[in-house]
């Protein structure tokens, strides 16, 4: 391969790898949106909490993120359930403003709590089990990124399988489609909402643990991922898991290609422009239900 071709392939691979992680984060967001019809503005902070959980388990108990991944996932599931029980369940029928500000306030609260408790320092896991890189056809692939991508892919698949193939998952879909009709069939919508929040948060639990292997950990870390995830959710179609999956990969590629052809500084501008174009021109996204 020519050097230019190699560089281009390298860029494509990086975009693909990070795209799977975007997909997973967006799947959590889109699940909550699809079932409960509320945008979780604190989703990025959930991711941040997962990364800090992985960091502190490593720092205090020498648990490698790969080992502590199930713990982080459980912890985030718990956070999601508590958020639903304490806050969301009370504002389901509230005006739009109250719905926006409830999760928005939670975002401000969690982010600054992290600043206050753990300072604004950038932290990282110094010696993770998963590290280094491999060379394939002259291309370098970072192993932590590869593991994160594969882990994200598997988790996205699991969530999709759960929602479409299990009885509980179908009940979840039924609630998303028509809460009242589902309730008439004996489906407890409160339980379904709790579950959606639990799984939605647990997805970023997995993503956070995987990211902590190679990404800096700081209070604002959620921003960049979750702002991207909003775009992914919109592009995929609000509430659609396959849509989020495909859109995550597209956005991952768009980011790296934008950085490659234009300038790394402007790559996010393209991503935000995609959001604006999609919601204005095709609000149902690629695979939205409405």
């Amino acid at each position: 391969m020519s050097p230019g071709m190699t560089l281009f392939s390298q860029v494509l691979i990086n975009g693909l790898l990070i795209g799977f992680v975007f997909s997973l984060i967006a799947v959590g967001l889109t699940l909550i949106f699809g079932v409960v019809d509320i945008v979780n503005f604190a989703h990025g902070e959930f991711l941040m909490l997962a990364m800090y959980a992985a960091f502190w388990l490593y720092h205090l108990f020498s648990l490698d993120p790969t080992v502590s991944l199930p713990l982080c996932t459980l912890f985030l599931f718990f956070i999601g359930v508590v958020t639903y029980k304490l806050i969301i369940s009370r504002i389901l029928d509230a005006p739009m403003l109250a719905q926006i500000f409830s999760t928005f306030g939670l975002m401000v609260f969690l982010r600054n709590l992290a600043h206050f408790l753990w300072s604004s320092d950038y932290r990282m896991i110094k010696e993770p089990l998963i590290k280094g890189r491999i060379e394939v056809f002259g291309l370098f692939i970072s192993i932590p990124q590869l593991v994160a991508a594969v882990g994200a892919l598997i988790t996205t698949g699991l969530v999709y399988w759960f929602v479409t193939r299990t009885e509980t998952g179908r009940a979840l879909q039924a609630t998303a489609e028509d809460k009242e009709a589902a309730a008439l069939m004996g489906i407890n919508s409160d339980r379904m909402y709790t579950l959606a929040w639990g799984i939605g948060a647990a997805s970023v639990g997995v993503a956070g643990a995987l990211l902590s292997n190679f990404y800096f950990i700081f209070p604002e870390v959620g921003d960049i991922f979750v702002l991207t995830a909003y775009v992914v959710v919109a592009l995929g179609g609000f509430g659609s898991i396959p849509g989020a999956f495909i859109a995550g990969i597209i956005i991952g590629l768009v980011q790296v290609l934008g950085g490659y052809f234009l300038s790394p500084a402007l790559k996010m501008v393209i991503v935000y422009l995609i959001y604006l174009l999609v919601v204005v021109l095709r609000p149902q996204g690629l695979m939205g239900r409405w």
Partner: protein
Amino acid sequence: MVARIARWRVAWPVWAGAALLGILVLVFPLLTTRPFPIHVMILIFLYALLSQAWNLIGGYAGQVSLGHAMFFGIGAYTSTVLAIRWHINPWLGMIAGGIMAVLLSIIIGYPCFRLKGHYFAIATIAAGEIIYTLFVNWEWVGGARGLFVPMQPESLVNFQFHSTKVPYYYIILVLAAISFVVTYWLERNRPGYYMRAIKEDIDAARSLGIDATKYKMLAMMISAFFTAIGGTFYAQYVLYIDPDSVLPLALSIRVCLVAVLGGVGTLWGPLLGSAILIPLAEFTRVYLGGGGRALHLVVYGALVVIIAVFQPGGLMALVKRFKRPGFLGSSPV
């Protein structure tokens, strides 16, 4: 007549209190010579102005914007760039900045007003982040290094004072007062009624023949104009701007939090929210510094959640429980 006297009997302590507070605000700079309290008061009025501006679109018209920093930044950058490149007076720059912000609000509002609720909020985040990134990378306006406002001899005409903060105090007091008067007028006239109708139920409002897009656009334009004026004031007050001080998402968030705490869609909510949050923020910043910097925002985030869940009307809703309806010219949310 009897009823009027009875109402006066109930209301007069409140009126007296308000008058006393008004006089205190007017003579405040005479009571202290220390710069810090005056600085805090200036910020209170600046944020009252900004969050009142936000309140017009976010509170009255119900379109939650999380990108208002872009209008603030456009105001600050327009007047500063005009002063640097063409030596244009900052007062003229302030008007030019307001006009630029109105143009930007049309470009952004026109497509985005088709979106509802959450989608609109995220769209404004996206637009704000686009503007922020462009300014960081735009060398002609200083890029990430920012711009210094050219030094001028101190005078009201030059909009610059170096020996004292007191003139800034009165300038921002007047600017904030204008925004409150405009809001007061809107609240009691047709555009205000239409905006609230749009917020309550846009389809019902449309079926009554209200041109929803037109009135949302009107709210957005006035809002953008006042926010940009706040931006120019900030530039002249601090004499240095960069994307991180006048365009960040954090600023958009702060402006809307002030209004939410005080009470969205109420006339006095923004002032109340600002009078509580800004001193809290400044004192924790000065006395706790470093790690303590975020403490007020922790309290604040928790307050916003509690308010959203239990009292969506904000603190003004609590105030209203203790008074007769209509007194402060505010309306129920």
